[in-house]
């Protein structure tokens, strides 16, 4: 990753009421640092979606809806790349089956990771002893 323009760390309660706040932070960030014109608006919308989906995923699947837990979101931005990490300290979730979503099947759930992978360039989920982390990268130039 090139020279960092910004590093933002957010610790936020494990509650869906904060999805809007996190999404809005993503939008503001894209507008602040994105190129003027249509590109910044597209990136703002995409960041809102990606952060909302990643946090909702952590709430539902990794933290099992426990409102007392905290989600840690880390956003690193350089001129070339956006790097987002969403940490959880729960049992985690099955990334491979989340990736297996088939759009043709009319399921009610299971589009979150599919949407994130469609909007970001690289998405991985790592499980360590201390934490799990959903990492997402997007090239900006």
């Amino acid at each position: 990753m090139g020279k960092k323009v910004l590093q933002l760390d957010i610790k936020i309660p494990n509650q869906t009421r904060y999805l809007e706040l996190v999404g809005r932070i993503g939008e503001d960030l894209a507008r602040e640092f994105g190129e003027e014109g249509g590109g910044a608006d597209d990136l703002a919308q995409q960041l809102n979606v990606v952060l909302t989906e990643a946090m909702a995923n952590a709430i539902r699947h990794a933290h099992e809806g426990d409102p007392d837990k905290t989600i840690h979101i880390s956003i690193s931005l350089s001129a070339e790349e956006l790097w987002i990490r969403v940490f959880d300290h729960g049992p985690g979730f099955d990334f491979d089956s989340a990736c297996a979503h088939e759009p043709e099947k009319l399921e009610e759930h299971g589009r979150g990771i599919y949407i994130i992978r469609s909007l970001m360039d690289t998405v991985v989920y790592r499980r360590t002893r201390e934490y799990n982390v959903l990492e997402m990268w997007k090239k900006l130039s």
Partner: protein
Amino acid sequence: MQFEVTAGTGATILRLKGERLDAHNSDALKTRIKEIFDGGAKTVLVNLGEVRFIDSSGLGALVSGFKNAVFHKGRLALSSLQEQVRSMFDLTRLNRVFDIYVSEEEALSALSGK
């Protein structure tokens, strides 16, 4: 998110009164649509005109509504999608599943068979 339900010509209209449909309020929409079909409605039009943002949970609530419609041998249609919302339907290919109309007027005209 508030919902406004009115009886239109040929369809029950459900208007979403809020800019954001996400995992925080999608269950309420899912429940409201189910109530409308359980109450005997055959055709439901969901007007998304005020909605600026939708996530996978919001899409899931509408898929649930679509399944309710099939179960009741009815129809669920959508109208007035903003560009950002439309892009999420395209991305998930749900644009192929739903009847999507440009405006409430166009939807009602089509749904009432005029």
